[in-house]
Every structure is written in C-alpha cells, then in structure tokens.
C-alpha cells in the first residue's frame, strides 16, 4: 500500500521528512515548469513546432509521474484531477489544437482499455476491434443524419437530447455485437482467432459501405448508411446555455479571444465527456481485473484446459470478455460520431484496429495505466510529433536555413522525406524496438500482491499439519511397517 509520505511521518521523529517529500516536490515542480513553458512558447516562433512537440508530451505524461509517487491515493487523484480538469482545459482554450489532441488521446485510450480486456486479460487476439467502434458510431449516425432514407421514410429521427440514451444503447449494441463475434470463434485460438476477428472487422466495414441501397424496388431505395459517402450532419447533445455563457466568461476572464464560443464549448464538453468515459473504462477494467472474473480470464489466457478443469466456464468467460471489451468501443463510437458530426466507413479501416492494438502492445498488455500511456505515446506520435517535424522542416526551408558543419541547405531536403509521411514506418520501428527491449510494454502489468492475514509464523499451526517439513520426515516413518515394494 502507498503510504502518505507527506503526512504520516509528521510524528516527532529525528528522521527529517523532507527527504521523503522530495520526489513529490520534484514532480510538482516538473508539472509547473513544463506547464509554464508550454504557456509561454510563442506560436510565431520559428522553433515552435519543435518546442510544442517536446513540451506537450512532457505535460501529458505528468499524471503518470504523479501516479508513480509514493503518496496517498486520494492526493494523487486530486493532483491528476487538477491537471486534467483545470490546467489542461485552460491550455486547450488558448490553443484548441491541444484540446483536440488530448481528446483524441482519451478516445484511443478508452478503446485501448477495452481491447486490453480482450487481448491483455483474456488473451484473445482481436484484429477487428474497430468494428465495435463502428457499431457505436453508426448507431448514433443512422438515427440523426439526414442523408439516409431510414429517417426520411419513418420520420424516426432521434432528438439530440437522446444522445445520453444512445450512449447507453451504444454500449449495449457493441456488447451484443461482441457476443455475436465471440460465439463462432470460441473454439479458435491464437493465429486462427486473429484471422477470423480480422475478417469480422472487415465485414462490418464492408457492410456499412454497402447498406446504402438494399431495396429491389428502384423507386424506394432503402439507404441506411449512405455508403462510402458517409453520414453527414450528425448532431451532438444540446448544451445548456449556462455552459456556453460560462465558457464565454471564462475566456473573457483569461483574456483569450474566442470567436465561436459555442464551438469552443462543444470542444470542451467532448473533452470532459471523453475523459470521463475513459476514467470509467479504466475503473471498470481495473475492478474486473482484480476480481474472480479477471482471475478467470487470466487463467484462460494462461492455460485454457487447466482453467476449465478448475471449474471456469470457458464459454461464458470468453463471451464476457468480448462483450466487455466491445462495450467501451461502442460508447466511444457514439461520442466520436457526435463530435465529428460525420461518419464514413473510412474511419473504421483495418489500420485503425492495428493502431489500437499497437497502443496496447506499446503500453503493456494487461496493464491499464500502461495502455493509457501507450495511447499518449502512439497518438501524439501520429498526430503531433511527426506532423510538427514536417512543419519545422518547412519553416526552416522558408528561411533558407543551412545545417551547420555538414553545410547542408535544408531547402534541398526532399519532399519525399517529410516525417509526416513516414508514420507507418515509425510505428513499425517503434514496435520492433519495443519487442527487442521491452517486450511486455512501457508499463508492464504486475500481479497484485495480497496482504496475508497473519504474519509468518505468528499463527499457531499444529505440528501434525506441517506437511512440508521434508527434512524431519524419514522414509522409515512411513514405510517401516509397509511391505517391501515391488520392483
């Protein structure tokens, strides 16, 4: 258990407690300095992309530094809440790109937590995970977009207020889809399972690309998903006016010029919502992990035959893993559709499934804080760092900079070598490096240590019950009166 270094040692002791508080002070200082620098770097600066892509990741990982401190759990939660709900939104209001980035990170983190239940806990390799994300996104899209005929014919357009209901329905629908996928693949393991789930992901994507004209009657086409063009005009939940006013007052108070306060409010709202769902997902996954259900999953992952022989209902547990894992993606799908106001099959391609799986592998299979950190690393690399390096090279080209010593004019840097074009190459490299140096992830999963009821040797154990004491038992004790063995 974490002991509270700041307060517990307040008792009169010769030991100075500032020594134990030192790491905490360092961590707080780190957060303050990084945050201050992030604030003060100027957008118009030549090296802004470089600084931004160094400082922002440093800021985003600060909750993990706090998690690693040896301080009271409640204090950790408080500090992380301050970072997530005060510092980050203020930064995001000043520069909405950061808000967008952190929202994307949280979306992928929640999905990675879900996939981690399936792959990390239960050991079922799922290469079509994005299908559940699509189920959630299309569930909300189909009922709110005007582009398909379902709404036009039946007039069953969902009111924006129903967003919260659909968030719940998205969870249910994805869980059911998860069970539907789980049923036929129960007997499969390893590579075979991976291939079938990959196919399943593609089935869902192809299904939504083709559910645009499924009627034989030409005059009344039934268009559910609007095919490859996607569903535009998806709405989000209505926001109460006081929220918008609150954000307007906040930006005024902070001296931030805000042109479209409503849009800004929505961005902030989705950030908080996604962060909340992510926190719930992490909590649910942690509780499942540390329960008979989680232990049953791990047992199935370790040895399916032995697990069954120990009374674990394999079928039920595997289906539960698929359903639980899928449900997080379903919720995120609904939010994703509302936030982007548009869904198309393109968003649910195979590479997305791989992207989420890469997050789980980089972060650490089975480790919840690991996969969240994985989401930070992989998403930032994808959306910020590589793009910023491209930006940096372009701006250096504009000022005709020449790399000193080797005398290389940056103007001659070929277009083909733009870092942003090499994201998959960098991912591949990252995965290879991970497999060589940290195969169990950045933050590997640890088995929970249980505290024993009585300390060793304290409890009175009758002599006769100590069976393990091999040294004191002589073979003659047992075999003395036994007939001689048969050879």
């Amino acid at each position, binding site marked *: 258990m974490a002991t509270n270094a700041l307060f517990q040692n307040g008792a009169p002791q010769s030991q100075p407690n500032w020594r134990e508080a030192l790491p905490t002070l360092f961590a707080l200082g780190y957060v303050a300095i990084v945050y201050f620098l992030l604030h003060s770097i100027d957008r118009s600066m030549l090296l802004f992309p470089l600084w931004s892509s160094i400082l922002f990741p440093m800021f985003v990982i600060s909750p993990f530094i706090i998690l690693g401190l040896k301080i009271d759990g409640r204090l950790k939660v408080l500090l992380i809440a301050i970072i997530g709900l005060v510092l980050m939104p203020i930064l995001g209001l000043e520069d909405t790109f950061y808000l967008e980035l952190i929202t994307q990170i949280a979306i992928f983190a929640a999905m990675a937590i879900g996939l981690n239940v399936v792959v990390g806990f239960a050991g079922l390799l799922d290469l079509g995970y994005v299908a559940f994300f699509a189920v959630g996104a299309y569930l909300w899209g189909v009922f709110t977009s005007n582009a398909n005929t379902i709404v036009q014919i039946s007039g069953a357009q969902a009111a924006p207020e129903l967003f919260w209901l659909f968030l719940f329905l998205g969870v249910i629908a994805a869980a059911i889809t998860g069970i539907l996928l789980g049923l036929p693949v129960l007997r499969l393991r390893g590579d075979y399972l991976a291939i079938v789930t990959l196919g399943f992901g593609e089935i869902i994507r192809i299904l939504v690309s083709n559910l645009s004209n499924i009627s034989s009657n030409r005059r009344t086409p039934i268009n559910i998903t609007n095919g490859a063009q996607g569903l535009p005009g998806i709405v989000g939940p209505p926001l109460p006016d006081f929220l918008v006013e609150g954000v307007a007052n906040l930006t005024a108070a902070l001296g931030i010029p805000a042109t479209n306060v409503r849009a800004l409010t929505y961005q902030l709202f989705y950030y908080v919502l996604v962060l909340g769902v992510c926190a719930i997902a992490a909590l649910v996954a942690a509780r499942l992990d540390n329960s008979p*259900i989680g232990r*049953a999953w791990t*047992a199935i992952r370790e040895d399916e035959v032995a697990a069954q*022989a120990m009374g674990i209902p*394999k079928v039920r547990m595997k289906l539960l893993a698929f359903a639980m894992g899928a449900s997080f993606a379903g919720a995120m799908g609904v939010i994703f559709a509302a936030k982007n106001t548009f869904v198309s099959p393109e968003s649910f391609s195979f590479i997305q499934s791989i992207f989420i799986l890469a997050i789980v592998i980089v972060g650490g299979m089975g480790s919840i804080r690991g996969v969240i950190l994985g989401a930070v690393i992989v998403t930032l690399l994808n959306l910020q760092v590589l793009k910023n390096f491209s930006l940096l090279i372009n701006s250096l080209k504009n000022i005709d900079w020449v790399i000193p010593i080797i005398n290389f004019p940056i103007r001659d840097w070929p277009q083909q070598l733009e870092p942003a074009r090499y994201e998959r190459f960098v991912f591949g490299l990252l995965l290879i490096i991970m497999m060589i140096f940290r195969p169990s992830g950045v933050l590997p999963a640890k088995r929970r240590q249980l505290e024993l009821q*009585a300390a060793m040797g304290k409890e009175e154990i009758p002599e006769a019950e100590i*069976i393990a004491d091999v040294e004191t038992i002589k073979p003659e004790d047992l075999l003395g009166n036994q007939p001689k063995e*048969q050879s």
Partner: protein
Amino acid sequence: MALLEAKGVLKRFGGLTAVQKVDYLIEPRTINAIIGPNGAGKTTFFNLMTGIYVPDEGTITFDGKNITGLKPNKINNAGIARTFQNIRLFGAMTVIENCLVGMHRRLHISLPQTILRLPSFAVQERTAQQRVEALLDFVGLRDKANEVAKNLPYGDQRRLEIARALASEPKLLLLDEPTAGMNPQESVAAMQLFRAVRDEFGITVLLIEHDMRVVMGISEYITVLDYGQKIAEGSPEEVRRNPRVIEAYLGRGSAASHV
C-alpha cells in the same frame, strides 16, 4: 454407495482404442491408485472422468449424478478436481491467485457486484482469501503466497497444483503422477500430504503413479490397466501377487507397450 462408478467406458483415437470397456468403482473416503505400463490408458481414463475427453461408449456416474459428456467445468462443479501429469499451473499468476481460480465455483459473483464493488463482494473476496491461506498453510506454501507460480521450484509447483485442486472443495481428487520427478524424501512428504487430504478433509483420492513405493505405501485399492483394459484390481497385496500384473510389467507386455 460408490462415489464414482464407470461402466463400460470406451475411448478410441482413430484406430487405437485407448480405454476398452473399463468398469471402475471408487468407494468414498478411500485412497485409490491406477497403475500400468506407459501407454496403458491411465491418463486417458483420467481425462474421461474429468470431461476433457468424452467417452465413445459407457457411462460415468459421480455422486449419484450422470456426468458422462459434461464439460470439464461442470464436472469440477460436481466435485471432481484434478492435477496434471505435466504441471499446468497459471504461470503468470501468484500462488494465491492460482488457488483463488481453483475456488471459482465457490464464488458467486455477478458483473454488477464486481463493477460496483458492493459490500458483499468485499466480504466474499476476504473469506475466499482466508480459505486459500488456510490451504496454503496446509500444503506449506504460505511464505510463497505472493510469488508468481512459474518461479516456484518444482516440488512447490506440484504442491500448489494440489492446493489449487483442493480450493474447489472437491469430493474426489484426481492426481496424475503427483510424485513424478521428486526425490525419495519429497515423495514421502507428498504421501503424507495425500493421506492428510483424505483424513482431514474427507476427500477421496485417486492417483496415477509409477513410483511403486508411493503406490504400495498409501493406496488401499489398486487398479491395473494395460492396453486400455483393466487386468487386475484389489488391495496392494493382491495386485502384487497377480500373475497378469507381473507379466504386464516384466513379461512380454512391457517390451511392446512403449509408445
């Protein structure tokens, strides 16, 4: 009434009949052994009793209930627990967790209980943990409770497998070569453990064993299989004198039965 009764149990693998019409009875609170040369069908018979294989013919009744063809977890729920010839622990899990998995059928948990962490959940987890600790005391693994199973030395792994099987509070414990690879002293300790399982928990024990010292030392009733057929049964004395047994072990049978 017999605790377990197998009637005409038969299992084929392609052209090979691994278990041929075996009738088998286990009386409650006894220590039984199945012996036989390699490839005699002993482990196959175990796998038939625990649901890993489904018999092609015959029925198995346990505790008055027909368990033929049930899934392994259902058979465990009915009260048969087992260990494996090649140790099959959950390597990445700790000693305590391995036993808690064994206790699965004793835990009644729903998803909402788990996610909302209702008080009943905490109570149940605590009781389960206490029971596991008592079990670890019994097999002598308490001081290794938080170690990861795959890091345990061999003898401890065997003991943990037994603790894990006992965690489900079975009526019948099947041990597949439990003392394989043990030195004589460890074997003796293991024999004491098996006796204690029967004497203290009232659990019926059935073991497959090659070490005759162990078999003759603790079994009250021995059954001999050869080529999937039951060739002898009875007390250790009777079995030892049985000419068919001697032939199976020393005569023509033993030379041909290498797999």
